[in-house]
């Protein structure tokens, strides 16, 4: 009964306080998101990934760095090594579990840097117009003109290999599309009457951009980010595979594939298991992105 009234409280058409209105809007979004089975599957996989990363020391059966050369390249289902061992006898399952931390770290950092930079550049460019727009968009064009991995490679080569530089390199190549999206959205929003209305209250450009334009751009950016996450994970794995991302013995998934490549014909699981992990997480992000697009797209529904 209490739950029923909570539900009614959340679904009311007449919210009684600021908090109530916010919660009600959130709950409506959650309800429409929950109706999308595929998106829920994606969300569950990602929540599981976060849990695995959080509780890695508890979940991992072995130390991911301990080598056991006598038991190297053990096949799947070996005693106490469910996913086998790699070329140095390290437990692959434990390395995958600890590797989820690195994957999440990369994803979170890129997701913090690239869209925010893109949003800033795009909305300022779209709202200001004139020469500001021209300068910012030509810079964006220059970044867009470089092939993504090549630019990342050049940056990492210049700054030195390592996970932080890989993140920066990926962010450097990832922000221009966000800037373009944000600019296009801003151009459609800036002429709207509600922007004119707030201008007539004497609001400055900074307030209009951050309070009035950002909230409307962010939803399409979030969707784009979740859809790009798969690409970001793959780019990070690619850099790791080329030896320019995470350095050994770090259990980064791309680096693990790179190590397993040498034995791929005789000992396929060494490269396949991290590959499956990357595949699963990428897929989960894509499913989540599709679901979020349905919920957040301001043009759909209301």
């Amino acid at each position, binding site marked *: 009964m209490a739950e029923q009234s909570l539900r009614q409280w959340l679904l009311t*058409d*007449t*919210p*009684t*306080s*600021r908090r*109530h*209105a916010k919660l009600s*809007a959130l709950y409506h979004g959650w309800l429409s998101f929950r109706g999308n089975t595929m998106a829920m599957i994606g969300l569950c996989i990602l929540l599981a990934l976060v849990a695995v990363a959080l509780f890695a020391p508890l979940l991992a059966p072995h130390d991911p760095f301990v080598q056991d050369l006598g038991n190297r390249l053990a096949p799947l289902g070996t005693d106490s090594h469910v996913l086998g061992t790699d070329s140095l006898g390290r437990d692959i399952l434990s390395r995958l579990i600890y590797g989820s931390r690195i994957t999440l770290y990369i994803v979170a950092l890129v997701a913090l840097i690239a869209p925010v930079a893109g949003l800033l550049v795009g909305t300022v460019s779209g709202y200001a117009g004139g020469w500001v727009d021209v300068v910012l968009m030509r810079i964006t064009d220059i970044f867009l003109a470089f092939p993504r991995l090549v630019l990342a490679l050049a940056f990492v080569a210049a700054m030195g290999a390592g996970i932080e530089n890989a993140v920066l390199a990926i962010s450097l190549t990832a922000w221009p599309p966000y800037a373009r999206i944000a600019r296009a959205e801003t151009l459609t929003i800036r002429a*709207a*009457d*509600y922007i*004119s*209305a*707030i*201008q*007539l*209250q*004497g*609001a400055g450009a900074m*307030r209009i951009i951050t*309070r*009035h334009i950002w*909230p*409307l751009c962010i939803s399409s950016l979030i969707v784009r980010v979740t859809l790009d996450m798969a690409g970001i994970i793959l780019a990070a794995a690619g850099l790791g595979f080329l030896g320019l991302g995470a350095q050994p013995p770090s259990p980064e998934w791309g680096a693990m594939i790179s190590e397993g490549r040498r034995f791929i014909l005789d000992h396929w699981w060494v490269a396949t298991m991290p590959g499956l992990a990357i595949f699963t997480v990428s897929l989960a992000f894509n499913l989540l992105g599709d679901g979020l697009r349905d919920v957040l797209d*301001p043009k759909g529904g*209301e």
Partner: protein
Amino acid sequence: MSMLEIEKLNVWFGHGRDRVDAVKDASFTVARGESFGLVGESGSGKSTILRAISGLAPLWSGRMVVDGLALGKVRPKTFYKTVQMVFQDPYASLHPRHSVDQVLGETLQLHGFKDIDARVVKLLDDVGLGQKFRFRYPHQLSGGQRQRVAIARALAPQPALLLLDEPTSALDVSVQAEILNLLVDLRREHALTYVMVSHDLSVVGHMCERLAVMKGGEIVEVMGVDTLRRMEAKHPYSQSLLAASV
């Protein structure tokens, strides 16, 4: 002293060969407390005059004086305490992600008011919306309710001059009457001056004391509402407009 003086106002869009002259040599004055109508067909430049006064149409020449203050290209912040505008389409003039409370609260905050909570309550009462609408989002409101919120927002800084850009043309006929009556009441209570744009002569006849008829960016005739009622317009275009609206 008159509330609004417009003298030889020209407004245009674009530069060089793309230049479109939307308003040509428009002149009129509106007395304090008066309600003045601008009528004409679509594209005659009547809304553009309002946008020029409010500062939303930056390319203009001529002289505009509001409450004794000549307007320059950049409007001082105090200008927006004197002049406010209500837009035509209530479905486009409210931010889709901001609740009524946020819209009014931010407006009050921008104008430097301190007792925001009390004022939001007062504004909602003034425009005939109960407190139960305070935390709703625009999609939870009807067109008439949205326009009431927009009017409340325009009233928030306690302006003297309200520019009304076809405030009822996007609404149902029954709701139109409600909003028009609300505007009549508000003018009496707050001693407001109205400049109202409309293509509906009966609305202008109900709301205004004087009106200007516009055609192709020019004001062809300024007349009193009595003249309108007696169908005594002088200019042939005004006559045809009157004849068409009967």
